[in-house]
């Protein structure tokens, strides 16, 4: 059972078409950033246009005098409400970069804010934390770095108990983490990893989601493989993360998404995946995959693909580890329900997010490559035909599908027999008509295996005008040799 956290998304005021257009723009910007390896960047964290549209009234720009007054009132006002109100006003003003600049240049302003943050006036503390959070969001390094004196306190408060406050501290830390390596160089010796390890035991879902976010930003840092991931692996964080990913009534989608991504950043950095395997990562992720497939059947729930993606990545990469072979005896890795689950998810992705199909097929490749058992499952569960249906989606997908089919075929006559007859031949003739060299190349490999292991395949190929299909690639450099070899085999056996 998947418990959904309270919905975060507020209703928006712009029209549907405008939203779609805006989303396309955002996607394009993110794609560009990713290619430049700038995906972890402050500027991209919040969608500014969206924010401005939501703000009923635009925040005012405050000058020095006004800021000073707010601070004075917050510190020394007589009425509790008055003091809170002053900070609320300040916080609103701090949404403007101009006000932020003025604030940080004002002598003693940060010190006062930190003082309010550490005061024993609970509601003032909260508001002060919100002010700090605003500052941490800034795109200007000077503003963000002005928050540094507060970090030891933010970390200390992670061991507290007030869930709203901790959540805020975590999102603030997440923003600071993204800012620069210099900031992280302060946070690490201050003990951010042990602080997170203590905080991850919180029962509050909102805290866990915020923690997962902050941790994922930390793990994405450029220097993470050398400077951060080793200490994370040495802490109790991985065990807790895996626990939070275990299927069951307590599994929460928002929380699971964050920690699945955390695991992905750790695993693809290849620091010590063997350790994760001994902690049961493969087993947990396998069970999670089954659970995901179940959830996908039951509900139209938006967002399941956000969890499927990192789970695919973690499993696929872990399967390449030598240690995975050692635990291969464990049932989870041989359990053919994993294959069933994967296909249910592939179908789901085909409808919901086809661009993620390659990731699912990558997992299928890694499962089947060296596993006669899984290849047999593909055959016995009648999954070849559904697989062939994916051949028209894209070139990348086609190459992966053909690779999986080759994984099956190369295991010998017993397997090829089960691939034959059926739609396979006509699908192959279709793919031979593609212009993409990789797709055609993989088709040629599959054909060779079929000719070798399945009597009658070459004959049938000839009868269906296979030679003509081959002809168009005779001059292509990467394909020539294989084309000729196949022509020879088809004609002369």
């Amino acid at each position, binding site marked *: 059972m998947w418990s959904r956290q309270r919905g975060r998304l507020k209703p928006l005021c712009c029209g549907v078409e405008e939203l779609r257009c805006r989303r396309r723009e955002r996607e394009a910007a993110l794609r560009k950033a990713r290619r430049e390896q700038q995906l972890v960047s402050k500027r991209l964290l*919040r969608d500014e246009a969206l924010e401005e549209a939501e703000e009923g009234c635009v925040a005012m720009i405050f000058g020095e005098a006004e800021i000073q007054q707010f601070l004075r009132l917050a510190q*020394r006002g007589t009425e509790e409400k008055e003091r809170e109100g002053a900070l609320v006003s300040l916080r609103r003003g701090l949404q403007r970069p101009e006000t932020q600049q003025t604030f940080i240049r004002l002598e003693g302003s940060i010190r006062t804010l930190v003082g309010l943050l550490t005061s024993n006036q*609970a509601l003032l503390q909260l508001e002060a934390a919100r002010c700090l959070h605003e500052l941490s969001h800034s795109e200007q390094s000077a503003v963000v770095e002005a928050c540094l004196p507060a970090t030891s*306190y933010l970390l200390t408060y992670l061991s*507290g108990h007030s869930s709203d406050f901790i959540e805020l501290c975590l999102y603030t830390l997440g923003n600071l983490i993204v800012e620069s390596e210099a900031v992280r160089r302060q946070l690490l010796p201050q003990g951010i990893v042990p602080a997170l390890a203590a905080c991850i035991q919180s029962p509050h879902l909102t805290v866990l989601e915020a923690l997962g976010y902050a941790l994922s930003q930390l793990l994405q840092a450029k220097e993470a493989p050398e400077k951060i991931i080793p200490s994370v692996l040495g802490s109790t964080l991985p065990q807790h993360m895996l626990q939070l990913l275990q299927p069951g009534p307590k599994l929460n989608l928002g929380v699971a998404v964050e920690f699945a991504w955390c695991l992905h950043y750790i695993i693809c950095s290849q620091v010590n995946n063997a350790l994760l395997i001994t902690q049961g990562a493969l087993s947990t992720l396998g069970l999670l995959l089954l659970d995901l497939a179940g959830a996908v059947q039951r509900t139209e729930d938006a967002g399941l693909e956000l969890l499927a993606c990192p789970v695919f990545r973690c499993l*696929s990469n872990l399967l390449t580890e030598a240690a995975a072979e050692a635990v291969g005896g464990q049932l989870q890795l041989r359990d053919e329900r994993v294959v069933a689950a994967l296909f249910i998810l592939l179908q789901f992705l085909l409808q919901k997010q086809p661009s993620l199909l390659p990731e699912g097929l990558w997992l299928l490749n890694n499962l089947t490559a060296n596993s006669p058992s899984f290849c047999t499952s593909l055959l016995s569960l009648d*999954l070849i*035909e559904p697989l062939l249906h994916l051949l028209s989606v894209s070139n990348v997908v086609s190459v992966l599908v053909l690779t999986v089919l080759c994984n099956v075929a190369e295991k010998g006559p017993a397997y090829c027999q089960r691939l034959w007859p059926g739609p396979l031949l006509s699908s192959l003739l279709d793919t031979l008509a593609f212009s993409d060299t990789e797709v055609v190349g993989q088709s040629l490999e599959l054909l060779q295996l079929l000719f070798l292991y399945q009597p009658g395949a070459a004959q049938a190929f000839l009868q269906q005008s296979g030679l003509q299909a081959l002809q168009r690639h005779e001059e292509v450099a990467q394909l020539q040799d294989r084309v000729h070899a196949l022509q020879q085999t088809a004609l002369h056996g």
Partner: protein
Amino acid sequence: MQLPPALHARLAGAPGSAEPLPVERDPAARTAPFRFAPRPVRFPREHDFFEEGDVQRHLYLQDVLTQVGGAPERPRVPEFTCQVAGCCQVFDALEDYEHHYHTLHRNVCSFCKRAFPSGHLLDTHILEWHDSLFQILAERQDMYQCLVEGCTEKFRTSRDRKEHLVMRHLYPVDFRFDKPRKSRGPVMPGAAEQVLAEAPGDDGVPSEVDAMEVCSEHVEPPPAPAGERRAYSHREMELVSFSCPRTVAQNLA
């Protein structure tokens, strides 16, 4: 993409693996010009293969983060007062009360009433400020534990510890949860007279200089008559709570 109907049943069924068909490879399979060999593939962090999924991930994060940070709408409830003895703070939202309680009443030292942000800091405080055995041991060995969770270093004096916090952990020099004790001797239950003799503002009472509060005049202690605003020793608290109101001096007689 039509899936065979039996597939859903298989997912819901028992764990199990297929009995693998016999594998029988012909060496001719991998001879040039053919080169296919099955192999699991691994992608490193920055690989282009991850572009699509990464973009989707960040689109999602943008949506989430845009909502964070503003004060959420709190459902209002009829006003109620904090139930902790002596606290008269009033609330009209449960979340505000939760934060108040955790900040002020959860990790409170019963000796000196200071509130701490975490159980860990409270325990350290009690040990270093109110435990006479600690003082004795500290004369012979390193007892002052580093405040950073996960760091096992111990120090001879609180000053040494502070230096470690600053140099090694980059903590601020005026870190508010590491104030050294100022008193001449240990504050223990038996020394009640000594405590009473000290005026408010000295060790044992949250003072102006104490960084737990920014503005000490807004401390939340109960509205008691000035004469009784003193630190009670731990033991005295027990006496007072079971007896009828008497002056502290009478209790000690």
